[in-house]
């Protein structure tokens, strides 16, 4: 009996011990370059000799982003040699993990934010407002006007992040060789686009490779048509100031339907991811490709000078070019913010500002991305800028951005349901049903 009781207690103890060993979160953090004598203390007064480690939530998933973090760390350490970072890799999950961490009070000191997640975090008081810092340090004097107008302020009029990107258009790239090979005129209006689609289809070339599995991609495609007739695009729909049954939108939707019925996309378009669509384009199986201007460097590496982008989406009527300067994309309030629970807000803000500027510098100098939010006259890129980058750099100031990426609009109900309706339209829903569905969505969720 005693032996059995002892055995019982012993087994229970072992079991409980095993349970405790299972607890505790597994942190998947990397440590960036840290000074040899650094001690992992919480952030204190920066004037002291004490080493400070700030938790930083940023992109850290590939060779180039890792080098970028090292570059930015060095730049920060030029002013704050006692500061280093504990990196928390950015999750491509629409901000869900960062919202969960905000709910548990576990935000990193400095975190990369995008437009979609800023307002919920700001509303809950999880991130700091940077208005006073920006004004006190005259931060905007170094920014381009387009960045101030499009990338700095959130929709509630406050500033919550130091921007890392300026305005960025979404472009329609095209394979020059394929157009030459099949004697297709580079279209400048919708009729020519339809002709191009037909010619490519007749020759078993996919006219446009689209990765519509991502919601924003189909939204951008919609804007490419809608903005020619109604510059407000999907943004106006989300704000409830327009309806799909308005004349301009109806016309745009009709043209989209014609393009889709003519076979503009590859089969399985709503199930295609970026890698699939890009592979079709870069291997010469597709003649056109839609993506942001950030893709220029990657496309150039794969296709050299065989690719260019349309100066304007060829979705307008031939005799109507008023809105040819309208481009989908533009600016998003995206960059580095500061958590409200950071130990030293002033230090964290200053470090975040330096880090953001260094990142924009790196993207311009090392990768030739010309949409830095800062003036880049004094910077010399180390890479030969692709022709498309130079072209985009010259055209950026003339581009008009009057809509928004569907994933970045603050109306999340619209931003979620609209791409779903678009997917149904892309795979065969009728114009009438699509217009009816979008009008119902605007009625229900527009203006939220």
């Amino acid at each position, binding site marked *: 009996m005693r032996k*059995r*009781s002892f055995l*019982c*207690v012993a*087994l*229970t103890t072992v*079991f*409980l011990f095993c*349970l405790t060993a299972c607890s505790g979160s597994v942190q998947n953090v990397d440590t960036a370059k840290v000074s040899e004598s650094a001690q992992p203390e919480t952030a204190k007064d920066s004037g002291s000799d004490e080493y400070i480690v700030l938790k930083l939530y940023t992109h850290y998933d590939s060779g180039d982003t890792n080098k970028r973090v090292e570059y930015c760390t060095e730049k920060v350490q030029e002013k704050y040699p006692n500061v280093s970072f504990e990196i928390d890799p950015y999750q491509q999950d*629409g901000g*869900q993990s960062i*919202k*969960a961490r*905000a*709910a548990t009070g576990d935000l990193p000191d400095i975190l990369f934010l995008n437009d979609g997640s800023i307002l*919920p*975090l700001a*509303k*809950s008081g*999880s991130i700091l407002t940077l208005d006073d810092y920006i004004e006190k340090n005259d931060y905007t004097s170094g920014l381009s006007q387009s960045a101030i107008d499009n990338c700095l302020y959130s929709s509630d009029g406050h500033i919550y992040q130091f921007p890392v990107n300026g305005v960025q258009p979404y472009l329609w790239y095209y394979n020059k060789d394929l157009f030459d090979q099949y004697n297709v005129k580079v279209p400048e209006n919708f009729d020519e686009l339809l002709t191009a689609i037909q010619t490519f289809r007749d020759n078993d070339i996919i006219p446009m490779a689209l990765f519509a*599995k991502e919601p924003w991609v189909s939204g951008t495609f919609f804007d490419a048509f809608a903005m020619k007739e109604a510059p407000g695009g999907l943004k106006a729909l989300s704000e409830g100031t327009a309806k799909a049954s308005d004349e301009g939108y109806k016309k745009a939707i009709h043209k989209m339907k014609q393009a889709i019925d003519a076979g503009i996309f*590859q*089969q*399985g*378009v*709503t*199930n295609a991811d970026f890698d699939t669509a890009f592979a079709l384009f870069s291997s010469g199986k597709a003649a056109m490709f839609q993506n942001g201007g950030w893709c220029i460097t990657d496309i150039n590496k794969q296709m050299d000078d065989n690719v260019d982008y349309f100066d304007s989406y060829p979705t307008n009527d031939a005799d109507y070019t008023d809105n040819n300067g309208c481009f989908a994309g533009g600016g998003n309030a995206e960059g580095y913010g500061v958590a409200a629970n950071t130990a030293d807000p002033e230090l964290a803000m200053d470090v975040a500002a330096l880090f953001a500027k260094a990142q924009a510098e790196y993207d311009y100098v090392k990768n030739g991305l010309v949409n830095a939010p800062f003036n880049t006259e004094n910077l010399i890129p180390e890479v030969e800028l692709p022709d498309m980058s130079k072209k985009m750099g010259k055209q950026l100031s003339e581009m008009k951005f009057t809509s928004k990426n569907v994933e970045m609009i603050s109306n*999340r*109900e619209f931003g*979620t349901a609209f791409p*779903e*309706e678009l*997917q*149904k339209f*892309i*795979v*065969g*829903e009728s114009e009438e049903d699509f217009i009816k569905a979008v009008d119902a969505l605007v009625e229900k969720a527009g203006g939220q």
Partner: protein
Amino acid sequence: MNKMLGNKKAIAAFTLPVLFVFSLIVFFPIIQTIQKSFYDWDGLTKPIFSGFKNYAELLRDPLFYQASKNGVLFAIVLVIFQIGISTLLALALMNPAIPFRRFFRNAYFIPAVLSVTVACQLFSSIYNPEFGMINKLFETFGLDWQQDWLSDTRCSLLAVAFVSVWHGMGYQFSIIFAGLKSVPDQYQEAAMIDGANRFQINTKVLIPLIKDTYRICLIMAITGGINAYSYMQILTKGGPGTSSHTLTYMTFRSAFTIGEYGYGCAVAAMLILQCLTATFLINKFMRSESITY
């Protein structure tokens, strides 16, 4: 053995910790979910009590009915194909004339060992409309019926369901096969002596005797179908449009994409209700006296 079962302290010592952990990670979240479904909550700020508003909105939401219908359809596919094919395979392997039975028994379980991601990536290639195996097979046989399996609103849900059929069939097969093996041979021998053929033995003797096993398989298939999520998240992201949404996907969408956690909890509560109802009905109509041999 009786002494062991009579030792209530030992029973408590071994079961209470597990019950505690189970309550903490299963019951407590369910109760919290139901509680939060009566609130307007964005997951970050303080929840605001809203009564039955979320449920009223849910009952007016066409997506709820579509997701529920999809869940039921998913469950029907699982029941018919997963249980049906598993039964045929298990009955086939009961036949001693089949060679390499042990090999087949192990091979049928291999898909269940793969992770959902691997299974979905595999079928994503098979379903590819341009280069996928299925369309290429049709082309080889001269059939003009190539489909855009995952990008067609009419068939995307069924395509996703069949991935689940293939992936989970190993479990159902194992359970049914174990059930069939537990039936003593004398019942089959008696039936053979009475002149029953193989088909009659299977349908009139074996299958009725493992009714309890089928009850468990049905519960697994139906609840698995109603709350399917991972397959559509990986293969179609609930698309095209909302054609492959289920209630679990709708919960995820409401809570994590739109940021309406209260509404998402209401969807989850309805999902729990549907699963419990299905389990209750299955138990009610398939309960029988336990068979002892």
